[in-house]
Each structure stands twice: as C-alpha cells, then as structure tokens.
C-alpha cells in the first residue's frame, strides 16, 4: 500500500525534515509512526498524502507513483485516502453533518446515499445525535471524532492520522485508537503518527521510530 524508497524532504535551505527514509506498509496493515515533535512525523504523513512532494526518493501509495503524479491526477489520488489532523480542522460555518459530508460532495454522491453514509459514519464514532450541532459546541474529543468520521465517510483504502490523540485525555485517546483498530479490521490500511509511546505499545502493532528525520528503530514485522 505504502512504499518509500530513500525519501528526503527539505524545506528551503533548512536541514532535511526527512532524510533518506525507506519504509513499507502492506495493504490491510495498521502501523504507527512515533518520535519526538519535530522528528518528521507530520512531514512523512504529508508526503504520503500527496500534500508535499519529496525532494529526493520515490513514494508509491496505492499504486500511484506520487513523486511523478501530475497536478491533474492528484485530486483523484487524494479521494482514495482519509486524513485525520491533530487540530481536527473542522469548518465552523456549517453543522456536523455538512462537515462529514464534504468528501462525499466532492465525490458527487447523491443526497439519499450521502445521508446514509454520513449517518453511518457518525453512528460509528457515536455522534449521530450531534449531526445538526455546530462543531464549535462540541468537546475536543467529539470534534476529533467528527474529524475521524469525515476521514472515513467515503471508505478510503488508506487512513492517515497525524497525532489524532494529541489533545485528548488517556481514556478518550484509547477510544479513538480503538476506532482506528475497528476500521483496520474491515480492511482499511492505517498509518498513525503519535508521540504517545505508552498508548502505542498497548496496541501491539508495528511501530516506526523517527528521530531527526531518520528512522531510528522499527518494531513489528510489516513496517
């Protein structure tokens, strides 16, 4: 599903944000990227999501060669992935339902099908009763779950999450990771960046440890 070969990313003239990183995540797998802040976790996820282009090296995601993907082909590629952010990035000018429906609107789903899928996604994250609420009125944990519903509503083949539990207490964090585990069980490949070593340890999944833009350690078989 994800394959990186000696990928380097440098922003301007600063030192490398990622330096010659190679990794592989098989389809259907779930893996974690960990490391201190500034280690390059976000950069790695942004590269895999096609939001940044590598300075050097090759990236292959879901059959697409991202380092040579044309600008026109990028939207289609992005529709096959789901992204979860630490700061949720919800739109406060519309209710929860519309936030979650956004990827389906882009995919041109018809109303009835859209309603079904949005409600299913909200149900999955336990927020069906909040569909008409403005996200501003929700707690941090609820906002994060809306963000997750939005990331999975179009059933992407790959789910990328950047510090999804960053602002949450341990109980909520555990709940969120359990959600990801559920999605993974139904076939969604998941790559999750987190600095919470203890939490990750409990999941028993492959872990990549990043430090200063390099992979310092690997735990587990498939990563």
């Amino acid at each position, binding site marked *: 599903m994800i394959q990186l070969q000696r990928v380097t990313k440098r922003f301007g003239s600063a030192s490398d944000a990622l330096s010659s990183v190679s990794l592989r995540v098989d389809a259907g797998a779930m893996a974690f990227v960990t490391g201190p802040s500034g280690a390059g976790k976000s950069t790695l996820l942004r590269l895999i*999501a096609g*939001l940044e282009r590598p300075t050097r090296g090759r990236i292959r995601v879901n059959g697409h060669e991202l380092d040579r993907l044309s600008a026109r082909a990028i939207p289609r590629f992005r529709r096959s992935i789901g*992204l979860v952010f630490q700061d949720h990035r919800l739109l406060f000018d519309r209710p929860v339902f519309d936030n979650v429906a956004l990827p389906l609107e882009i995919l041109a789903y*018809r109303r009835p099908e859209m309603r079904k899928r949005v409600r299913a996604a909200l149900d999955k994250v336990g927020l069906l009763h909040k569909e008409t609420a403005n996200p501003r009125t929700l707690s941090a944990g609820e906002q994060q779950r809306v963000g997750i519903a939005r990331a999975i509503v179009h059933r992407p083949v790959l789910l990328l999450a950047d510090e999804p539990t960053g602002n949450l207490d341990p109980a909520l964090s555990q709940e969120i990771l359990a959600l990801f585990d559920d999605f993974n069980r139904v076939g969604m490949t998941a790559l999750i960046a987190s600095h919470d070593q203890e939490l990750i340890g409990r999941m028993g999944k492959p872990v990549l440890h990043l430090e200063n833009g390099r992979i310092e350690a690997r735990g587990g078989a498939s990563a």
Partner: protein
Amino acid sequence: MRPGRRLIDALPAWLDSHRDAARRSLGRRLQAPILSLITIAVLGFILALPAYLWVLLDNARALSAHIDHDPRIALYLDHVDEETAGRLEDALDDDERVARWERIDADTALTTYRDSLPDPELLDWLEDNPLPDVIDVVPASTQPDTVAALREDLRALAPEAGLVADDEWVRQLNSLHELGLRILSVVAALLGLGAVLILALATASELRERQEEIAISRISGATHRFLRRPSLYGGVLTGFGGGVFSVILLLAGVALSREPLTEAAAAFDLEFTLRLPHAGDLLGLILAGLILGWLGARLGSGHALRDAP
C-alpha cells in the same frame, strides 16, 4: 466523478452538486447582504451609464429624422434635350431609391419665384425667362451611401444636366452619430473592464475567507473546477442583480429626463419625446451583467485558487 461510473449515472449527482454550489453561494450572499448589495450597485451604475448615453444617442438619431430636411437632388435641364429628359423621367419612375420626384418647368418656377418677392413687378423687365426646367428628386433613404449612388447614376444618365445634391448635411450628421457611437463603445468597454476587475477582487477576497474550507476540500480530493463552482454562481448572481439594477436606473433616468428634453425640443419647434428602450435592449443589459459577473468571478477565482495552499 467516481471511477467506474457511467456518465448518465453521474448526471443527477452532478446536477445536485451544481444546485448545492448555487444554493451555498446565494446563502453566502444573504449572510453579508450589505456587501453584496454594494457590489450589485457598483455593477448597476457601471452598466447604466453607457446604456443611458446610448439611449440619448439613439434618440438624437431619431430626432434628426423629425427635422423636415430630406436630402434632395436637383437636376437643371437647361442643356438637356427633351429625349434625354424623357429617359431621365422614366428612370426616376422605375428607381426604388426615389421617394418622389417633380418636374418644375421654367414658367412655373418663375411664377413661384415672382410670388415670393415683395415687389413682383421687379421681374417684368426680364425679356426671357432665365430659369431652366428643374427636376426635383427626393431620395427614399437618407443613408449617405444610397443618396450618393443615386446621384452618380443620375449624373451618368444625363451628364449635361446641372446636378446639385444637398446630401452633405446627412453625411455630417451620420458621421457625428458614428463618432458618438465609437466614443460610447470605448467608454463602455473601459467601464466593463473596470467592472470585471472589481468583481474579480470581490471574488478573490471571498475565496480568501473560504481558505480553510478550500484547504480541507483540496485534501479530500476536490478539483479546481469543484472549488471554483460556487464563485462562478456567485458571479452570475451578482451579474444578474447588477443587470436588473441597471435596468431600473436606466428607466428611471429616461423617465426623469423625458419632460425637460421635450420642453427643450419644443423651444426649437420640434415635437420630440424620449423613447423608452426596447425590451430586447433591456434584456441585453441584464445579459451583459451576467457575462461581466461570470468573467469577474472566473478571473478572481482562477487567480485566488492558484495562490491558495
């Protein structure tokens, strides 16, 4: 479109998406009504000004038709034999470019002239009638080209006849009208360009406000076209509003200037009423608004989306 879907299946969804874009665009305008109304008003003024000038110019042309001064061609027959004169008269009868013609023989002309004098006896010392027979021709059209062509044809038929045409004033009036139209076109084009730029700026600033939505949509795989759609609907809505507003302004302007213009014309012994523009012209004005609105939105969104993250 999702991969693997047939076009015919995707059409209803595509229409849904357009409807949503239009509705969202309208909603955004209703959320900031003052700003939207200002933009519509600016466009309305920009459209109404050249339209009003055009109405005045068009009416000025109509006014010239009221002045009883058709171009005339006079043929003096003093060196023309009767045979040629007969041919000339036959030709005038058949020519569709001639509204009417009249042969004024020398005696009638002298009598008319004598009657117009304050002291008719003055002419009695003349032994012979010095006036020639004259054919007075009134062309059917006041178009300078038509009158000139007729004049040349008549000259060819009777080269020896003295020919005097007073179509010069028509030419002058027409060239003034042409000049007026040209100046108006330049003014209208510059104003239109200004309107497009103003609308482009408005669109770009609106897109800046939607920055986060655009960023999230991009991440979710939105295309340029999808992101631009609400802006284009917004531009068309603003353009429509501006067009309708300009029609109202134009009609109000015409209504307000009607009476003073009629009075001014009466001072010159002219019967004149400012005509209202035709419904087709008013629809054209609204259409111009729509096109300018669309162009502005297209320009502004193209620019803003290229720069957006």
